């Protein structure tokens, strides 16, 4: 029994089929609980008013925007090293979800920034690096879309993902060069004694968990769709030959 068994498309399909509805159910439940709790049952923060409540969308989506890229990087490496097709398809499946998460983070950030900073957009390091991440996602998805041969596409996008990761990281620190910017530092971290107070922390945590599961569920669903499309393609090719 090893994790590589799930690289077999058939094994992947039979294992994920019963799990998927549960992942979806828990994801939706915890997202709804986290958001509703956060929106309606937390006190309004001092100096912020009710605008602070957008944090329950902003932070989880920003978290997943970065982690989706990391997941794509790992999946690309597995594809390049071990040539498991499911891995390449999972990377392909994660890209649109990552794009959506990045967009949500950017838009909620703009909506939040307007009342608190008095501007929709500033060229702050964090905001800028997210915009650059968004561009990288677009390039990655566009490369997948424009190559017909699936193996060539998987190879080339994997190489792009690796090089892109290095340059995305470089950009992340290059934009720090300008100034510290308006965005606050990290409010949540493992090694800090003082985080956001518990009243906000617990619903935020639930919402973050919901987004992680939602991402997982969407990626599994999209990977299953990709595998089915591959099968259809193979069947059609076989039908044409005979």
């Amino acid at each position, binding site marked *: 029994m090893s994790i590589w068994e799930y690289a077999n498309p058939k094994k992947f399909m039979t294992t994920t089929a019963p799990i998927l509805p549960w992942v979806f159910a828990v994801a939706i439940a915890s997202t709804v609980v986290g958001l509703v709790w956060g929106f309606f049952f937390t006190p309004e923060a001092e100096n912020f008013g009710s605008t602070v409540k957008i944090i329950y969308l902003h932070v989880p989506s920003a978290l997943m925007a970065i982690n989706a890229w990391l997941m794509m990087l790992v999946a690309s490496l597995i594809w390049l090293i071990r040539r498991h097709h499911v891995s390449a398809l999972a990377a392909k499946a994660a890209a649109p979800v990552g794009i959506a998460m990045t967009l949500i983070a950017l838009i909620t950030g703009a909506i939040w920034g307007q009342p608190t900073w008095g501007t929709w957009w500033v060229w702050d390091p964090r905001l800028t690096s997210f915009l*650059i991440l968004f*561009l*990288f996602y*677009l*390039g990655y998805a*566009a*490369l997948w879309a*424009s*190559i017909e041969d699936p193996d*060539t596409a998987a*190879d*080339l996008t994997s*190489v*792009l993902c*690796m*090089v*892109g990761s290095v*340059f*995305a990281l*470089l*950009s992340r620190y*290059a*934009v720090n*060069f300008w100034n510290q910017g308006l965005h606050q530092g990290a409010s949540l971290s493992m090694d800090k004694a003082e985080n956001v107070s518990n009243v906000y922390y617990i619903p935020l945590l639930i919402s973050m968990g919901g987004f992680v599961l939602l991402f997982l569920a969407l990626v599994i669903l999209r990977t299953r769709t990709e595998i089915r499309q591959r099968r259809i393609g193979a069947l059609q090719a076989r039908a044409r030959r005979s």
Partner: protein
Amino acid sequence: MIALLMRDLRLAVRAGGGFGLGLAFFLIVVVLVPFGVGPNSDLLAKIAPGILWVAALLAALLSLDRIFALDYEDGSLALLATSPLPMEGAALAKAVAHWLTTGLPLTLAAPALGALLNLPGPAYSFLLISLLIGTPALSVIGTFGAALTIGIRRGGLLLSLLVLPLYVPTLIFGAEVVRRGAEGLATATPLIMLAGITAGAIALLPFAAAVALRINLR
């Protein structure tokens, strides 16, 4: 490798090679800016470092799809792949040829265009140095992008979508050097970072480009 380099240079310089096209593009972009923002010389002096760097970057981008496209179509790239020269060497030679035909002329022409934008006096040397150090990175990164997209017909737009985000760090540090130079501040830190990016790109990206070429030639 030298032979390949000389061949590419000859091809670029002779008719139809597009040599000078990048330069003309650079000139036109820089000339268009004052039409867009108005002839206020203080404003122009302030934005000149950024404009010059962005224009140089776009001009370098313009000629990227020529790096491999013709060789891929007429089969000489496949011939290169079977030659004793490793693909990494071929990619590096192509990048050097691209730099010699676009990056270097752009660097040399930039001070003249700086005068058009009323660039402050002390910034000229920094403009020259930053472009000299930074444009090789543009060529090498662009070679990688071109290698990724040779198999795609009409890949020009896709190429710019892939390559422009990769140009961001180079642009930030390059323009920062000139801006600091113009204001008389210390330029060592961004200059070192710029040189670091260029050195890293030259060391690593030919390998990535060679991988992409091999995949595309499969």
